[in-house]
């Protein structure tokens, strides 16, 4: 049943077995999985069934982050959450992603790969990407893909799948929960407060506002927070202000270790080999994409992090160094500064003057000068990289407050030097394989670092790590069952619990972990703990 809480004329006191806060991917999956086991499940969703600007603005940060994009644009605050605008690009994490890697600070999950993989197949059903798995061997054979790195030292193929059109979780799965007798979805129900007993360590009640100045209460046996990677941390910090950091924050871990997947055009592959283009195929309303990544053995031997390396066909114009140098010179000279490698940039600019002219013609006059500028010249590598979890990268509460009096977030994020170093190291391994197999040559675009790591950096908008899973409250916020340390009945779902994020989009793993959480909650009920 779907209830619009803004229709309430008086304060409501709602009783439930399970209270799910947030109606995005994790919230929808969890409710659907629990509906046959619990008689009374409540979902509280701040938004409605469609985008509403006034509600979306609740995501506005206290101040615009300097490099990192505002969550105001990357999240969607209504049923289905960010799945309403994602591309549904899914891949599982690798075995090594769960391990403690001595060369990566703060790495290591309290659970291993084998504890998550049983849930990936069903997760793929939710994502509508099929039950035929992500094995590179299987897909290379099935789709007759050519793997140019088959005999390489360091490089292998990884697989991603996306349903077409992308799965919108509420549109695709909403009926299963809307029409179920055991589930009530309250839309326009913005959670504002929590009632925690320091004696029993139970969450007893959640308060929500229905945008009408009325506040309503939900009492439940179990509470699961599924607000998303930034909002989970924000709300947990907010709740903790009242309870002296007893909710998973005794060691100041909430909001810290914030990670994303930076996306960069950090290298070009110069090759005339067009077999690279046969690496993606459309199949049965799905897009199957093969990308390159480093083998586990290479990651261990060279103590580096993995990269997701898809290739984009590129023209002379796109690969022009002159245009890039032109921008670097322009930016620096306008600040009365000389860039590093000034001579090299001038040389690139002069020797590539035709492409610079082409850029000016295209941008300023919407016309072309040289047809050959569009000739195939190689590939750009729009890579996605793993980011090391670092304590200083964090979500914290700012001074400004939203309309419900909840502090807005401030985001502190940077790509640390160790990640930059590992990026170049990993790309060098890929470049060596490319040369060894006579596939072409790779140029690492280090000379563009100043812009690449600032205004040109992109993001997967995968907000991870802010309520990380750990073996103890000293190291994290939730335990291996995703239960908040210091509580008996308060769980968090979503990629905020990821201790590390791998190099692939997180949604498949979010769903897999949510399925695992659902099994834990069912077990608790069976064992009489609920």
């Amino acid at each position, binding site marked *: 049943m779907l209830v619009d809480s803004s229709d309430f004329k008086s304060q409501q006191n709602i009783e439930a077995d399970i209270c799910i806060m947030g109606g995005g991917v994790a919230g929808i999956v969890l409710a659907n999985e629990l509906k046959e086991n619990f008689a009374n499940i409540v979902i509280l969703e701040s938004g409605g069934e469609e985008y509403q600007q006034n509600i979306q603005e609740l995501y506005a940060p206290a101040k615009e982050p300097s490099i990192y994009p505002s969550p105001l644009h990357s999240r969607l605050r209504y049923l289905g959450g960010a799945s309403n605008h994602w591309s549904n690009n899914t891949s599982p994490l690798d075995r090594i992603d769960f391990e403690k890697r001595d060369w990566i600070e703060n790495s290591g999950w309290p659970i291993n790969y084998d504890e998550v993989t049983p849930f990936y197949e069903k997760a793929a059903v939710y994502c509508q990407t099929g039950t035929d798995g992500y094995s590179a061997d299987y897909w290379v054979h099935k789709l007759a893909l050519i793997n140019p790195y088959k005999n390489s*030292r360091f490089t292998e193929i990884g697989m991603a799948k996306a349903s077409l059109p992308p799965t919108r979780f509420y549109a695709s799965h909403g009926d299963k929960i809307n029409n179920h007798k055991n589930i009530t979805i309250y839309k326009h129900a913005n959670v504002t407060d929590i009632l925690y007993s320091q004696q029993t360590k139970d969450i007893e009640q959640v308060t929500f506002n229905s945008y009408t100045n009325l506040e309503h209460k939900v009492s439940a046996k179990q509470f699961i927070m599924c607000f998303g990677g930034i909002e989970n941390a924000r709300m947990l910090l907010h709740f903790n202000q009242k309870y002296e950091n007893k909710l998973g924050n005794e060691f100041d871990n909430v909001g810290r270790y914030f990670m994303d997947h930076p996306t960069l055009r950090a*290298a070009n592959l*110069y090759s005339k080999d067009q077999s690279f283009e046969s690496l993606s195929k459309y199949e049965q309303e799905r897009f199957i994409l093969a990308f390159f990544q480093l083998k586990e053995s290479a990651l261990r031997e060279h103590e580096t992090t993995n990269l997701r390396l898809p290739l984009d066909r590129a023209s*002379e114009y796109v690969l022009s*160094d002159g245009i890039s140098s032109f921008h670097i010179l322009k930016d620096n000279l306008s600040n009365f500064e000389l860039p590093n490698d000034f001579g*090299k940039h001038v*040389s*690139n600019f002069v*020797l590539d003057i*035709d492409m610079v002219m082409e850029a000016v013609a295209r941008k300023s006059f919407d016309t*072309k*000068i*040289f*047809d*050959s500028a569009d*000739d195939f*010249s*190689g590939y750009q590598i729009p890579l996605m990289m793993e980011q090391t979890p670092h304590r200083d990268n964090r979500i914290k509460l700012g001074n400004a407050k939203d309309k419900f009096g909840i502090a807005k977030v401030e985001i502190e994020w940077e790509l640390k030097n160790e990640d930059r170093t590992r990026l170049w190291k990993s790309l*060098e391994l890929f*470049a*060596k*394989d*490319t*040369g*060894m*197999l*006579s596939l*072409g*040559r*790779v*140029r*690492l*675009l*280090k*000379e563009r670092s100043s812009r690449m790591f600032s205004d040109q950096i992109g993001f997967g908008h995968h907000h991870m790590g802010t309520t990380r899973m750990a073996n103890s409250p000293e190291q994290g916020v939730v335990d291996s069952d995703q239960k908040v340390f210091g509580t008996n009945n308060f769980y968090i779902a979503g990629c905020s619990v990821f201790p590390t994020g791998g190099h692939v989009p997180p949604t498949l793993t979010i769903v897999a972990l949510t399925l695992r959480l659902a099994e834990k909650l069912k077990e608790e009920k069976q064992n009489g703990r609920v």
Partner: protein
Amino acid sequence: MVEFNRRKFLSVLGCLAVTSASGNANLLGLLNDENLKVSDFEQISLYWQHNESTSASTFLCNKGVDATCSQEYIEDIIIQDFKQDNTIIINGLVISKTEAAIIVSAYDYL
């Protein structure tokens, strides 16, 4: 619309110069490559001066590379370089040392 490909022109011009200077047509395949920028040549030469104890020509000689070698033979040596991590990074371009030595010899000769 003007149909003009400056790179191909530069590349052909450069290769002609190198070929006539070195008398080795078999090296054409390596240098007639759009991934090389003019600034790479100088950087590779500088790298060799500052980092290698033997001259580029001695290096090539030790590898058995001379004007009579076939393209396939040279390519095989380059592949071995990549396999054995005998690579250098110049202006971000990852190339084998043999490639670098060939470029240095040609550049120095010019």
